[in-house]
């Protein structure tokens, strides 16, 4: 297996500059929240003293004049997915584990690209818009597995692609143990043992390494020798269905958020996007007024075929995982669709009458456009603000 790893440095910062949130020439820090702590996600390239995931206080101590922006993760993923879509035109095997990190399968492309350089040039052409060539350009590395390809790209600042072949151990031996994708505890323990480089770790026999670090010890030892059996997962070709809406007012009320999500689901189910399939899995996200991001994946045992069954599950999840603050935006990303095993039609006439009514309303809307019939729904009946108590929602949703 031959893999090309493409790293787009400062991807989050670049997304923000592309949409004009921060000026290109001004120092800026993109932050995210973990628990009660604010951490650095990304920063402008001129802030060399900073590191990703460091606390914001420590970052501000080093560069107090930087502008602070809260990460808009759905936007970064949307931008990243656009880039992956474009890269799929170059190679059908594309994996994007995190925004800014891309793996591209290079096997079996000889008929399209005469050599590796042609493929690399095509990739550079696509990524040029997201990371202009030069010192801030994409970093590329080719190797036989993901770990080596990542390292080849990460330590390549030349702007060309680093093709790692020949003596892998010579390449790895002087690299610090901090680059190992293992727990922080294990990395610090390695340093306590006086093992500062991968070469030193590779010199230790496998047995003692496993006895000290447990199951992770085997992985540490293998990685230090350039062995990585992490599978390459190219993107699964599936319709990417995304719906989101800004709430009419910032709210902490779960009922208001549920009404908004119900409306989004109604829009999806009505648009015949699913073509008879049901929702197998979805990602639910919200964005709070101070730009914090909340996200949950929801899987359905049986594909959900209507708004009611979907919203019941969503409501339970939202009750179990409270929002980090007042919500101003909510969205859904349908990640999986599936056919139901069986579907029981309604037997009783009154339920059928409801269905007929819904069908009539739908016909009316098709004829006249826009929702014509609404139902009143309790949103926040306890609210002191009268206009927040009830809402009109289209009757067929």
């Amino acid at each position: 297996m031959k893999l090309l790893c493409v790293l787009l440095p400062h991807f989050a910062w670049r997304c923000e500059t592309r949409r004009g949130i921060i000026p290109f020439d001004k120092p800026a820090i993109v932050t995210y929240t973990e628990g009660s702590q604010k951490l650095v996600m990304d920063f402008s390239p001129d802030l060399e003293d900073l590191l990703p995931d460091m606390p914001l206080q420590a970052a501000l101590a080093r560069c107090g004049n930087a502008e602070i922006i809260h990460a808009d993760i759905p936007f970064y993923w949307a931008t990243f997915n656009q880039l992956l879509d474009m890269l799929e035109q170059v190679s059908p095997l594309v994996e994007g584990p995190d925004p800014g990190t891309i793996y591209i399968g290079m096997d079996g492309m000889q008929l399209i690209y005469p050599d590796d350089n042609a493929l690399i040039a095509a990739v550079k052409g696509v990524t040029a818009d997201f990371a202009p060539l030069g010192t801030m350009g994409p970093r590329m590395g080719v190797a036989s597995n993901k770990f080596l390809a990542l390292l080849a790209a990460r330590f390549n600042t030349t702007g060309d692609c680093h093709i790692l072949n020949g003596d892998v151990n010579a390449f790895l031996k002087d690299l610090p143990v901090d680059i190992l994708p293992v727990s922080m505890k294990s990395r610090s323990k390695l340093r306590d043992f006086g093992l500062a480089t991968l070469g030193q770790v590779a010199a230790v026999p496998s047995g003692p390494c496993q006895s000290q670090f447990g199951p992770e010890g085997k992985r540490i030892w293998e990685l230090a020798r350039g062995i990585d059996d992490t599978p390459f997962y190219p993107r699964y070709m599936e319709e990417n269905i995304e719906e989101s809406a800004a709430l009419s007012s910032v709210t902490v009320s779960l009922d208001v958020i549920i009404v908004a999500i119900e409306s989004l689901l109604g829009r999806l189910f009505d648009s015949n996007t699913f073509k008879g399939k049901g929702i197998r899995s979805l990602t639910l996200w919200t964005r709070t007024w101070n730009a914090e991001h909340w996200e949950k994946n929801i899987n359905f045992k049986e594909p959900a075929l209507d708004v009611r069954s979907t919203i019941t599950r969503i409501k339970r999840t939202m009750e179990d995982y409270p929002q980090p603050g007042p919500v101003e935006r909510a969205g859904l990303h349908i990640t999986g669709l599936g056919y139901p095993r069986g579907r029981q039609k309604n037997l009783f006439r009154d339920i059928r009458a409801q269905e007929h009514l819904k069908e009539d309303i739908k016909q009316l809307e098709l004829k006249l456009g826009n929702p014509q019939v609404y139902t009143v729904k309790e949103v926040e009946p306890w609210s002191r603000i009268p206009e927040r108590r009830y809402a009109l929602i289209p009757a067929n949703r």
Partner: protein
Amino acid sequence: MVEDTGKTLRPDTCKPVNMPVPIKIEENASGQPVAVKQKRRLAVMTIEDRWRIDDEWWRAEPLSRFYYNVILASGRRLVLYKDLVKGDWYEQEY
């Protein structure tokens, strides 16, 4: 594929009920309603109740309203409020 529309909740999604309606009010020196100016001027006979609401103070546009439950000279009952942030008067069922 359904694109991420990013729409706000418009009539095709859901809309609030009982939105305040602007109304012209004649007020006295202490800021209380004296008359309602609709098609013709109707004096306020009685103020039956009054209460204040302060909410959403964390937002850029906080809510601060002073409600009056009044009876007009015609005998009609009306709930009015004065927006203490902007100074405008509105009619709204409470």
